[in-house]
């Protein structure tokens, strides 16, 4: 462990922009949501009505979790908690991998490891930093909630619940970093754990089989039930899992060599069958795509299974229920199941938007590592090189959504309509791909930031961030490509106009990005 403190100082230096940004953003999200609800619901009675309506909406419960306290504080937690849990899980995974496996892969760890730095120090430093950052996020969340006038005990319980998710998934990432010798695979493994935790929690709340929640780290934080029971003992599970994962990670670290993983490499062919930029792009991209297709098929099964647990008829009287149907159904005659299916189709689209961005960032990684240069100094034009990756990114997006749509439709017992609704998201996903290509072509150095920013913006702005900063949904939805699509499964008629419009926009963004790529220097 020698040198851990020095490494933490190095991490602080490298994270001085990014970490404060996410800690503040995630920490203030809850108080922002509380302030927004305080403006909307001006009496205890209105909030209680809202709580009753939401309790009857299984589709929304699956996303947000159960309503545990019909108060302003309780409903704030209900609305925002799961979003914060997912986001903090995602950033802690990325942070820990960035300071462990990525460091080893690039050889920087070797440079430091030859100095007075213990073998376990990089892992200890990464975990120490990320855990502290998670606790800080929890603390800011709690303080923000107290400032909104909520009781201190519940606010602290909520803050700890938030921190617990970050802490658990930091440890998950710490372990994943020991298993593989590539940083991307490590992110994939830890991301898979995050996804499994999410789906279990989702199924538990959507189906009413609440015991499933006990299998999910996010579920444990939900079970704290802030402002209802404030049951901190559940977090003992988070602590126990964190301890087990951490002990495991350090044990594995002690047993392996620097740079090596546990999953060994077999010798491969001596002669090449990869003879074109497209074939190479496929080799580079196929692992990522396979992971996404599998993930979407599994998620589709889970979401489809839930459709049968949702009552078709719902009370549409309350304001909030009316708003829900206005957002996700085309007309007042649509039943809850169809509305739920459209919401799920949209959600698959929102998540799938990350895939083409990651695919574009892989192309950028080919460039920064100098591997693209090896191809481009051969008889390969830049556009031909990029075309291979973009073909996989665009067709891959369609394949991912098809896999999710087929699985969800088959399980929900309505295969073709569901498949149609899910595949309809493709042009909106392509718009995100276009933004990625534009960034890659014109602002390559900022491409990583822009891609992740665009993904988070599309996912958070319309429903959560926009309303929190005072932009009504009616306005904020105008910048979200998915919300232009016809709600084909929840009462809407198919219309080619938005589909073509989004496709044209995606093509224009891509073309502009490629034009930039042709002109700029390869670095």
């Amino acid at each position, binding site marked *: 462990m020698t040198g851990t403190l020095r490494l933490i100082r190095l991490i602080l230096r490298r994270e001085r922009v990014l970490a404060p940004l996410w800690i503040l953003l995630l920490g203030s999200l809850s108080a922002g949501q509380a302030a927004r609800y305080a403006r909307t619901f001006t009496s205890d009675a209105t909030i209680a009505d809202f709580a009753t309506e939401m309790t009857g909406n299984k589709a929304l419960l699956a996303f947000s979790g159960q309503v545990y306290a019909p108060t302003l504080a309780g409903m704030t937690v209900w609305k925002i908690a799961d979003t914060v849990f997912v986001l903090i899980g995602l950033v802690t995974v990325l942070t820990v991998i960035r300071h462990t496996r990525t460091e080893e892969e690039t050889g920087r760890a070797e440079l430091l490891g030859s100095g007075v730095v213990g073998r376990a120090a990089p892992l200890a430093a990464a975990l120490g930093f990320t855990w502290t950052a998670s606790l800080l996020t929890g603390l800011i969340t709690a303080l923000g909630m107290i400032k909104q006038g909520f009781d201190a005990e519940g606010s602290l319980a909520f803050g700890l619940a938030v921190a617990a998710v970050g802490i658990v998934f930091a440890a998950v990432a710490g372990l994943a970093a020991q298993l593989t010798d590539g940083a991307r695979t490590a992110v994939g493994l830890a991301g898979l754990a995050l996804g499994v935790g999410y789906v279990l929690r989702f199924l538990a709340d959507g189906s009413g089989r609440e015991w499933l929640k006990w299998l999910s780290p996010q579920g444990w934080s939900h079970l704290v039930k802030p402002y209802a029971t404030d049951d901190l003992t559940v977090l003992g599970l988070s602590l126990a899992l964190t301890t087990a994962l951490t002990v495991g990670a350090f044990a594995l670290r002690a047993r392996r060599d620097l740079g090596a993983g546990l999953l060994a490499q077999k*010798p491969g*062919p001596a*002669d*090449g069958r990869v003879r074109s930029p497209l074939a*190479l792009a496929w080799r580079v991209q196929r692992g990522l795509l396979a992971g996404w297709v599998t993930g979407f098929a599994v998620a589709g099964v889970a979401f489809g299974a839930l459709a049968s647990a949702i009552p078709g008829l719902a009370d549409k009287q309350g304001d909030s229920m009316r708003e829900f149907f206005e957002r996700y159904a085309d007309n007042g005659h649509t039943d809850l199941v169809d509305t739920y299916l459209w919401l799920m189709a949209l959600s698959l689209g929102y998540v799938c938007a990350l895939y083409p961005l990651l695919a574009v960032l892989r192309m950028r990684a080919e460039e920064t*590592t100098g*591997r693209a*240069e*090896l191809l481009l100094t051969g008889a390969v034009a830049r556009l031909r090189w990029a075309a291979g990756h973009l073909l996989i990114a665009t067709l891959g997006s369609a394949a991912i959504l098809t896999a999710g749509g087929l699985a969800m439709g088959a399980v929900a017992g309505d295969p073709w309509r569901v498949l149609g609704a899910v595949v309809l998201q493709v042009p909106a996903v392509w718009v995100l791909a276009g933004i990625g290509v534009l960034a890659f072509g014109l602002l390559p150095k900022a491409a990583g930031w822009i891609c992740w920013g665009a993904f988070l913006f599309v996912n958070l702005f319309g429903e959560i961030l926009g309303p929190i900063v005072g932009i009504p949904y009616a306005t904020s939805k105008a910048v979200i490509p998915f919300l232009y699509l016809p709600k084909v499964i929840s009462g809407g008629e198919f219309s080619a106009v938005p589909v073509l419009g989004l496709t044209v926009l995606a093509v224009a963004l891509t073309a502009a990005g490629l034009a930039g790529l042709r002109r700029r220097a390869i670095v």
Partner: protein
Amino acid sequence: MKTSDAAIAVTGLRKTFGATVALDGLDLRVREGEVHGFLGPNGAGKSTTIRILLGLMRDDGGEAVLLGGDPWRDATALHRRIAYVPGDVNLWPQLTGGEAIDLLGAVRGGLDKTRRAELLDLFELDPRKRSRTYSKGNRQKVALVAAFASNAELLVLDEPTSGLDPLMEAVFQRCVTAERDRGRTVLLSSHILSEVEALCERVSIIRNGRTVETGTLDDLRHLTRTAVTATLAAPAPGLTALPGVHDVTTDGDTVAFQVDDGHLEAAMTLLAGAGIRGITSRPPTLEQLFLRHYESEATVR
């Protein structure tokens, strides 16, 4: 010289990155069929020049002609005739070394299978290993095998041996010599002066983005001093006063000094008058040539 015998003809090349001037009117002429050494301290602009020649970057002024074409506009067509080995080779972790070699061959317009096998043997490289398990030296060998087995007319090698051990360095030198004998042109950017001295007919030395010396090694030596050590029968007091003679030191009957090339004869006549019992003279090594430029750069800065 006609442009047609030049594989590379660069005149007055300029490139700036923001406020930093990377190339400040650089000239470089590489004749067809020669091995040309491209020397300069770190940050002098060697890699920038090479990146412009490879069409990865655009110049801001001046002219660059590569195999008779425009390196930016005609990039794809020209690249069929070029093989490039970077100093820091990064390969696709998913591919084996053999797959990477064949991929590079395929995008360069062909690979000689027999030569590929010979070279793998010479460089003692196992082509079945995954690229991610290769050391720096082995990754470099992959790029070298791909380049030497290609049918390219021009090899552009940017510090290609920085990760090789002395044994492999010798193999590399044999390969470059063989390439020259087959009539291929080689641009060799290198820091290993013995390598440049052994392989290159002509060299260009650049500093701060400008060419400061260019010519054959013999030409360059003529511009500098010869080191002479002589054991004399009698003292030669006139030596210090002689024009072109520097750094005279006397130790008993032994005198050591340096003399500019044009004044060697006068110095010898003077020594002969004093009676020479023994004499050694060394032409300047490339290292001395090189250090002269490095040192003057230090004073410029």
